[in-house]
């Protein structure tokens, strides 16, 4: 059942990664969709690394997990993560 939450993403070099989707949400402030996921990898301190991206549908129909550059949006997403960590 856990496999159900896994998807495959591909980097610019064509390398595929299997990642676990943690949640999928929309910010009320801009109506855009975001995803939080993880490769279940740990950093040097033993913390689990998670990533967030904006979900964008390109004109050719492909999906991109895009970088989030707007600082206000990043702050909002941090708040979402904090809210869900409580």
């Amino acid at each position, binding site marked *: 059942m856990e496999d*159900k*939450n896994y*998807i*495959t*993403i*591909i*980097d*610019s070099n064509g390398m595929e990664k299997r990642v676990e*989707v*943690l*949640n*999928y*949400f*929309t*910010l*009320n*402030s801009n109506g855009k*969709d975001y*995803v*939080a996921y*993880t490769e279940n990898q740990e*950093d040097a*301190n*033993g*913390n*689990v*690394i*998670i*990533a*967030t*991206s904006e*979900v964008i*549908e390109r004109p050719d*129909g*492909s*999906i*991109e*997990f*895009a*970088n*989030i550059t707007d600082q206000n949006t*990043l702050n*909002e*997403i*941090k*708040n*979402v*993560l904090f*809210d*869900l*960590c*409580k």
Partner: protein
Amino acid sequence: MKPYNGKDLNNLLGFKAKIILTGSVLFSVSKDFIKKISDKAIKNLSNVNNFNLGNKLDNYVEQSTKDELLEQKIDNIENTQDALADTYHNVNAGNVFNKSYYLKNISDLYMRLENKKVSYGENGLNRYSLPKLVFMQFKKNSINTFSNLKETAIQKKDEVIDKIADVKEEVSAKVSDIKEDVVAKVNDIKPTRVEDNKTVEFEKVEVNEDVMKEDTYSQILNTLKQSIDCRSKLEQYRMQNPRIYKQVMEDLTSVYDKRAVDDDFIEEVGPRASSR
């Protein structure tokens, strides 16, 4: 006395309907008999017009009132439905906890990604590191929060659906009540007319049954027309054919008995039939 030929007279005058014939007692017609008969017909016609107009106006006002009420009800229904639709949308979005975000069903993401290439760039990732316990709590909350939202959304949906059904039922009942009320009011309408700048309740037109046996509009109109035609033809005969005019006048005086005209309109000259 020349025997009366009713058919000839009717053809002559085009006045077929209301001449009552006896021939037993003779009267002459006063000078303004025809005029008065026309005036009476005009008066009666005016009353009938007032009656018809009053009814039409009352019906129009009632219909307008009913339409206005129904339009208000329809507006209310539409406003309620809009409000419910907004609520429904918010519930669907899971936006029931008044937060700056709302969680979506991950399966929606899978559907969106189905058979599509998902690209990313290393530089495009926004990374965070979480202690394992926090990470586990994060996963748990993500699942539970969404489950709670979903459950709440389903509950809210049911409430909204019930609310819509209640509102529709309530409005339907009110519209039905309004219709019944309007119908009752229409049935209770007492025709009125304006007289001397006062609105008075309409009294049934008292049509002189010797002049007009029935008080329908068309018959009154027809009688009026016939009266005018009669006067016109009499005048025409008087000018163009005195012989026919004389014959007509003799026939008129011989065929109207006391039941056919008011005493005010005629001058009794005696039973000339027996003297001729």
